[in-house]
């Protein structure tokens, strides 16, 4: 039994560089495969509506559209999204995918609509 069992290591650590990253100045890059903000390509979309049926928080609604085959396209509210990935997995034409963008905040609701 001793007093101060960490003193030796604490002294050595005074001369090493810190273990934290100075965040707003130095940005860490998220790894590939990170589930960040969702992105959408309307040219690949069929308008089938499967993504809206599968979403657990009802964040996807189908709105009318001119471009797709079935005349509907999804509108995603990022504020309600939990980034689970069910919509990405079920889309038959891979029109939805995850980006590595984790800076998701905004001042108005329109900034958070995809």
């Amino acid at each position: 039994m001793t007093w101060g069992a960490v003193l030796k290591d604490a002294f050595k650590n005074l001369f090493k560089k810190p273990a934290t990253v100075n965040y707003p100045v130095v940005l860490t890059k998220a790894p590939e495969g990170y589930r960040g903000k969702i992105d959408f390509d309307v040219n690949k979309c069929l308008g089938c509506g499967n993504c809206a049926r599968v979403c657990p928080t009802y964040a996807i609604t189908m709105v009318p559209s001119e471009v797709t085959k079935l005349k509907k396209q999804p509108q995603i509210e990022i504020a309600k999204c939990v980034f689970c990935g069910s919509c990405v997995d079920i889309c038959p034409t891979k029109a939805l995918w995850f980006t590595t963008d984790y800076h998701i905040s905004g001042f108005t609701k329109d900034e958070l609509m995809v």
Partner: protein
Amino acid sequence: MSYRMPIGPIHPMLKEPINFIFYLDGEIIVDAEPNIGYAHRGIEKLAENKTWFQNLYLLEKICGICSSAHQGCYAQGAEYIFDVEPPERALHIRVMMWELERIHSHLLWLGVVAHLLGFDTLFMYTWRDRERVLDIVEEISGRRVGYSINTVGGTRRDVDDNLLNKAKKVAEFILEQTKYYEKVFTEDKSLLIRTQNIGMLSKTDAIRLGTVGPTVRASDVKRDIRYNFPYAIYEETPFEVVTFDSCDVFSRVVVRIREMYVSAEIVKWIAENIPSGKVDLGISPFKKPPVNEAISIVEAPRGELYYYLKSNGDLKPERIKVRTPTLANIISVIHMIKGHYIADIPPIVGGIDPCMACMDRVLLVDINKEKKVVMDKEELIRYSIKWYKKNKDIVISERW
């Protein structure tokens, strides 16, 4: 002169915030009463309104630290109801994520206990080492907390050889660091005074009061769901039950440190012996299950997690019942805390690992003088550290 002291609920950390009311006689605690319900979100009722596949993402949010244990237990129970067997490779990945989660949960708890006892250096060291585990989990699953790697019928993502090598290196790093933490926690005198012979829970009391998890293994009872009711692939892995027999807070620290060795060995074994094959059976999210009911039991980092599921042939479940391990351990806290000083409340309540949600506000009421003093969590910790510094000699002569 007797006091009645409520210790208030709010702490935004993980499971349930708990409110205790302590009945005091001078500085010694005579009785305690728990009041819970501050984070009740009605999840069991909400789960009856979502489909079997949408519930995977609802139930993992019950707890932030044991999220994979909740989701894996639900997926296992839903596989019993749908009557399917997931592929072998999926079970290996599922167990690897469960054990990585146990390592980072125990490291978090070690840091929090060190912080409660006034040892902030160890708090910083354990949380620095925890970052290596969170980095490998983020590369495998996509997020640091709330991994969503399980689905009904297997796992959603596969791992390649590169990631398995990285996981093996992280497991070897954890084995190294755990040796260092075991040396510090069992030799440093300032930690030993505050944790030995406090919060005694004898073997018969632990069985009588229904305790689960590392708290009961610290009272020399060999109970572990991975050993008594094996599930997934635990029978093939190099798993051993860890027990220790001094029945106090020190014993709980030693049990959790030694469990980290076992978990790191299991991760290494899986990285070397994982079979090849598919990882998902590909069940459609719009499929209806047969009429059935099932139970699913899993060893979460805090103890035994019990799920009961019932289906009546519909797309949505009829009933889901969840019993989390902290609820089973509250009764033993009331039994353990009688006869101790106020300054012993942080290590005893923190020793059952309740996601540290129990103590944020302390209200001391002096009934005779009608005077109230309010302290928040940081002040209670500072008060208990100062009290111990002043009364160190009395305590040492009383207990040793």
